[in-house]
């Protein structure tokens, strides 16, 4: 591992006249999204999540950069709804940008990767949790800082098993994303020894809980929808946040709710103040005027990865940074208690998964006792031996 760094440094030193530019421009491509209807009065609609995280990453990169003569800058592109990323990729390529934070859904990300010029770039997926992007659709020029659905499901499963809440009632929303998460949860259940005793789709029409006396309807609907045999925990897959929040405190049996609502498995949460995260949260809030989301965090990780590599190499040379990011020596401090790195087989950043309550951090997975021959972090998500990535 040290060897890789040494070789890279040697190459840099040997290259005659390769005085690297002193400014590193990192690209960002996001999408305008219609914010989901707020479920409750405390929900803050957010229109710039992801982007604010990338901006903070640039500021943090500059913290070290100013002592090393390295300057970092973000080149932002935000796509209109339905707009293809082709133009954005082309314009970033034209300005010589190599590293791009792709804050895009899976379909648009695939378009971006196929766009002319993208083959010379390294894209950081900071939005799409789709496992297919790490498996059959994986690419050499694609890294993932956002956790995959498999990682989120495994992180949650480990915590529920640790709690001995082994009998799950799986309630699945109507969208393809919900079904994909349910598949990951079923895989995790088999993997870690939980039993899904009830597996049910959510068939009720999305209701508006904010109607006056909306709670009356919910108070009758939810017990009916959750009228099933006994179980330990209701595991909900509702990525669009349409109904999951209605479950807690309303289920037919008195049982905890976990998954996309209730006790949430996530890459980041505003409730995390451990491992020095207080300062990151404070910096973010000062900059953005709101809480840091999991997409902000994934954007921050992407930009910080480039910065960390530039720091260690003491160079802004793009090809050296690309090689170093995938090397065993790369380690990023991400305020989750241990160093983060990229998996060599599918480009996924290995990282702890937070188990977050509405006001406090509940836990962080991997849980004690889940062992692995290489690192406990690789008990989360698709491991080397089972990876279908062949790029």
């Amino acid at each position: 591992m040290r060897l890789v760094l040494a070789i890279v440094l040697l190459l840099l030193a040997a290259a005659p006249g390769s005085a690297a530019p002193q400014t590193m421009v990192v690209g960002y491509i996001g999408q305008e999204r219609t914010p989901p209807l707020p479920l409750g009065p405390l929900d803050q609609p957010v229109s710039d999540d992801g982007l604010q995280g990338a901006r903070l990453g640039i500021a943090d990169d500059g913290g070290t950069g100013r002592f090393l003569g390295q300057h970092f800058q973000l080149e932002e592109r935000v796509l209109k709804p339905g707009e293809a990323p082709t133009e954005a990729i082309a314009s970033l390529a034209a300005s010589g940008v190599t590293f791009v934070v792709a804050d895009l859904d899976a379909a648009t990300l695939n378009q971006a990767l196929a766009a002319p010029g993208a083959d010379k770039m390294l894209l950081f997926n900071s939005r799409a949790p789709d496992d297919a992007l790490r498996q059959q659709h994986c690419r050499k020029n694609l890294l993932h800082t956002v956790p995959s659905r498999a990682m989120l499901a495994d992180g949650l499963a480990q915590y529920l098993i640790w709690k001995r809440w082994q009998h799950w009632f799986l309630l699945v929303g109507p969208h393809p994303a919900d079904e994909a998460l349910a598949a990951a949860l079923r895989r995790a259940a088999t993997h870690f020894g939980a039993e899904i005793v009830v597996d049910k789709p959510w068939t009720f029409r999305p209701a508006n809980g904010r109607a006056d006396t909306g709670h009356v309807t919910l108070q009758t609907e939810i017990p009916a929808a959750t009228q099933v045999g006994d179980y330990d925990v209701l595991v909900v897959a509702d990525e669009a946040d349409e109904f999951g929040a209605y479950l807690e405190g309303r289920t037919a049996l008195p049982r905890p709710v976990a998954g996309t609502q209730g006790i949430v498995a996530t890459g980041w949460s505003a409730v995390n103040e451990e491992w020095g995260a207080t300062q990151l949260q404070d910096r973010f809030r000062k900059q953005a005027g709101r809480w840091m989301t999991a997409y902000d965090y994934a954007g921050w990780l992407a930009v910080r990865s480039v910065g960390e590599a530039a720091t260690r190499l003491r160079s802004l040379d793009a090809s050296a940074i690309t090689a170093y990011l995938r090397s065993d020596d790369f380690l990023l401090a991400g305020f989750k208690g241990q160093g983060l790195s990229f998996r060599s087989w599918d480009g996924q950043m290995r990282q702890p998964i937070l188990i977050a309550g509405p006001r406090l951090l509940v836990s962080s997975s991997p849980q004690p006792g889940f062992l692995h021959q290489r690192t406990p972090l690789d008990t989360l998500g698709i491991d080397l031996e089972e990876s279908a990535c062949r790029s």
Partner: protein
Amino acid sequence: MQVVIPILLSVLIIAGPAAAETIYVSNEQDNTVAVVEGASMSLSTAINVGRRPRGMALSVDRKLLFVAVGDDNRIDIVDLAKRQVTGQLPSGVDPEFFVVHPDGKRLFVANENDNLVSVVDIASAKVIGTVDVGVEPEGMAVSADGHYVACTSETTSMVHLIDAGTLDLVDNLLVDTRPRAASFSPDGKQLWVSSEIRGTVTVFDTTSRAEAGKVQFEVPGIRREGVQAVGIEMTRDGATAYVALGPANRIAEVDTRTLAVRRLYLVGQRPWHVALSDDQKRLVSANGNSGDISFIDLEDEAVVKSVPVGRGPWGVVIGP
């Protein structure tokens, strides 16, 4: 009886220094400083301080204990004779760690949230200067001659060398990821800096500011992510350094000449900081996750006792 008393007395005299000392431990979750009697190795009381106490240091006359209470943005002054907070000092925002300058008049405080080092005049209770450093300043050290103050910045991965007189930044040295503690060797010739994420200690030559070596830690059965270097304490003769290894639950004893790890002591869970007794025969670690401190007898090379002190022990200072 007449024979027994002289024998008892002589035993007490032999055990003198250890018997007289007191161990102070900051409990960051309890908002207290636990007081542990050195002779009996038992908890005697807890002093209420401000919110989230972490860094601590004795005044030069060893009569006062300064305690950084981060969530209250100040330093509490504990009178050790009265065992209570008798005053406060300003510190700048979110103080985590600080050092008392050998002149006895000034504190150098890392303001974790403001990317600053604040200089506090103790007598006037005023911040008399600030130094811009990297993102999330944390560890602080001062050379014995008082010339240099060092500050680590966690996110910037650097140690900043500050001229304690002019408050100029003399140099910024890149270190391994997420540096935590810094410590000058007693002769001032070396600066040691621990890296939490990389699990290493980098040793710098203070004069040339070049890297003079690196200490690597390997703990059998624990992956590299689980070995994280945090607190550093050096013996007065400069021959040995003790490094707390955080989640690896170990204290490493390092030969400062060869940089080899001589041995590992298994202590409580997640030791943050360590302190040596005045006679250099005993080491105490503050173990954050198990809520206790571990006493290590350095002559017998054994962990002899663990004492529960409260929730979230972080800093440890041994005083009179």
